[in-house]
């Protein structure tokens, strides 16, 4: 039996969402798309784009009105991520990290923590980061080694994290640390807010990557970083739960990014196929190309439906979101990888050179199959939900 919420939910986007989406489309077309190639080539964090997003309230999308946000929920946020990712996956990460780095506070923080940190993020005054992975703890974060030890009422953090998005840009990091070494794998972990200006915090090594080059990624180092007790998020020893609940929601951002990349690549390839002439006619008139484009459009549309469905479950307060967000992320990211590979193929030699955007889209798509839980982990989550 369908629940009342499900039964009464209209099977279309509310008109105000469509208006907001159209506004975002215009901003993206006029301001983000023309910058995308440069952001990738120079591997620079696009501060101008972040300011642009702030001035149009996009940075407030993950937050409730109480915390200075738009209060428009998960669906609207992910529509925005999708629209930005159509043109620039690195810029879409600015919105994704807004949510990933603040969800632990939103879901598990005290009211005081929420009031202290969320409104600053909503305006763009501050930027968050989420620090879970370590060199030897990727898919298996329960094996982390970074430690927080009590000293008086404070905590002292030692260790290093790996592949942290927004490194060097973020004003604070949500850092997961072992606080009880005896508790066993995945237990005895706690989450802390660590401000970037605390002594002992170092930006560490930044990585060169295949894609999302406009988003800095690297290894923050924590050398006896002291934080006060009010920086502990949620219950001591239950940080693993904080991480998992965050990822259950935030991986929809990855799905949205993937859907956007796939749609951007499909749109570009379709337009190109109409223009490009070989053997005396537009290549779009060949069935080999037509069928590819049809398949690309269909898979992308299916991925979007999975994404919107999972978002609407979150917005309806449905507790059963882990499986749905995992399915959306898995399918959307595999779709993005496949679609962008085909888009490069449709453009042929032009697809392989940097003057055209599709090779960048293909490089950007790959990470969506890896971060915020590799697709192998998503399959585990889905398989477990079937027991």
């Amino acid at each position, binding site marked *: 039996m369908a629940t009342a919420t499900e039964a009464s939910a209209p099977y279309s986007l509310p008109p105000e969402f469509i208006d907001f989406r159209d506004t975002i489309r215009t901003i993206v077309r006029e301001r983000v798309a023309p910058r995308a190639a440069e952001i990738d080539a120079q591997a620079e964090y696009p501060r101008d784009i972040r300011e642009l997003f702030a001035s149009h309230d996009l940075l407030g999308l993950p937050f409730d009105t109480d915390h200075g946000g738009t209060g428009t929920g998960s669906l609207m946020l992910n529509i925005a991520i999708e629209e930005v990712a159509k043109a620039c996956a690195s810029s879409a990460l600015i919105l994704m990290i807004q949510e990933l780095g603040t969800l632990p506070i939103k879901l598990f923080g005290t009211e005081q923590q929420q009031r202290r940190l969320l409104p600053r993020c909503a305006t763009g005054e501050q930027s968050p980061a989420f620090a879970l*992975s370590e060199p030897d703890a990727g898919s298996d974060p329960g094996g982390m080694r970074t430690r927080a030890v009590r000293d008086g009422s404070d905590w002292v953090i030692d260790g290093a994290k790996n592949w942290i998005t927004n490194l060097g840009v973020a004003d604070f990091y949500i850092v997961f640390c072992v606080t009880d070494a005896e508790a066993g794998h995945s237990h005895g972990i706690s989450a802390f807010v660590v401000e970037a200006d605390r002594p002992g915090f170092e930006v560490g090594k930044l990585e060169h*990557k*295949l894609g999302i080059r406009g988003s800095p990624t690297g290894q923050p180092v924590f050398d006896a970083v002291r934080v006060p007790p009010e920086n502990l998020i949620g219950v001591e020893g239950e940080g693993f739960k904080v991480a998992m609940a965050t990822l259950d929601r935030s991986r929809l951002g990855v799905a949205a990014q993937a859907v956007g990349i796939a749609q951007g690549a499909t749109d570009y390839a379709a337009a190109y196929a109409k223009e490009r002439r070989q053997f005396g006619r537009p290549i779009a008139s060949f069935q080999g190309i037509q069928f590819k484009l049809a398949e690309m459009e269909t898979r992308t549309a299916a991925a979007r439906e999975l994404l919107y469905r999972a978002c609407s479950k979150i917005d309806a307060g449905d507790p059963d979101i882990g499986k749905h967000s995992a399915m959306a992320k898995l399918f959307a990211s595999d779709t993005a990888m496949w679609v962008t*590979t085909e888009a490069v*193929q449709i453009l042929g030699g032009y697809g*392989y050179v*940097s003057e055209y955007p599709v090779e960048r889209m293909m490089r950007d798509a790959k990470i969506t199959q*890896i971060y915020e839980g590799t697709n192998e982990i998503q399959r585990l989550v889905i398989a477990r939900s079937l027991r």
Partner: protein
Amino acid sequence: MVKDTGVRAPLPPFTDEHADLRASVNRWIGEEISPHVDEWEAAREFPRELYLRAGELGFLGLKYPEALGGQGGDCVHDAVWAEELAAAGASGGVGAGLGAHTGIATPPVFNFGTPEQHERFLRPAIRGEKIGALGITEPGAGSDVAGIRTFARRVSGGYVVNGSKTFITNGVRADFLVCAVKTTEEGGHHGLSFLVLERDMPGYEVSRKLEKMGWHSSDTGELSFTDVEVPAENLLGEENRGFHLIMANFAWERLSMSLAAVGAMRRLIETTVSYALERRAFDRPIGRFQSIRHKVAEMGIKLEASRSLTYQALRLHAAGRNPIREVTMAKLLSQRACLEVADECLQIHGGYGYMREYGIERAVRDARLGPIGGGTDEVMREILGRQMGL
């Protein structure tokens, strides 16, 4: 049952001599190329001296007669070279730069050139003193080769060439370009010819060095020709018979790309299997998880199917049978397979695979050209479909 001693005699078309060559190419790459790959990728080219060194070791003339400074071998020697360039970790870019020289630029000079052209272009190319490139693709003529518009107008004593070429491997620093031009107003299948253009000819210009997704250590150029005067003695083969020459050359280009894909897959799978045995998650090596083991199994099949089809095409080619169907199938299967294997290997490496320092992301970028270069997958399917009667 016969006990496997681990030592195997090479199977046809390979002999002990090819096994020795395999080992020496491998050793050279391991010692003199692999350690510098990252630096050359960042510099967007490898040093020109590498051609001289390869020439000195005899690798640039494996299949050419000793009388021309070659090693007196045949296409099977060249096949070993193509495969090992990829398998030993020379990178897609270095493989492309050296491979374009030996695999597509010099063969038409040897096959269709006069003794005088052999002396002028082939002999120095075998020594690595002159770098060769092949110029077919144009901005408006990619898959549609017959659409070539670069025009060589007949004048007294030779030709005047106007036009442009793009996506030319070695195009930026090639000393000579084996260049497809139309020699009749209509061009097309019966109006194409080959001219050898030389870099120092007035009007020959490298208009751009292209930035691309992969193959970073090789230079890819866009060339423009403005009233380039080319003497008649630079005509390669017969006038207006160029389409035939293009097609003849494609066979080896596609076969050597298939061999390179086989080599690249060998290396990727080997690297990934050792990673899966070392990398621990959830208290055990990830290679002990069934999903990883099954991924590796699928990759093994892709490699073996590509290798079998490629070697079969090579055997037929070496026997002089002009195996268009087998070469086309091998190219289509192996390039897709290599891209899929590279991507899967990156996936198994997870976050580490996405970072530059492990070389896996480079393999994915390099492999992406396979289904495009040397004739796209779509063109391969078209050739096959027609070959099969449709």
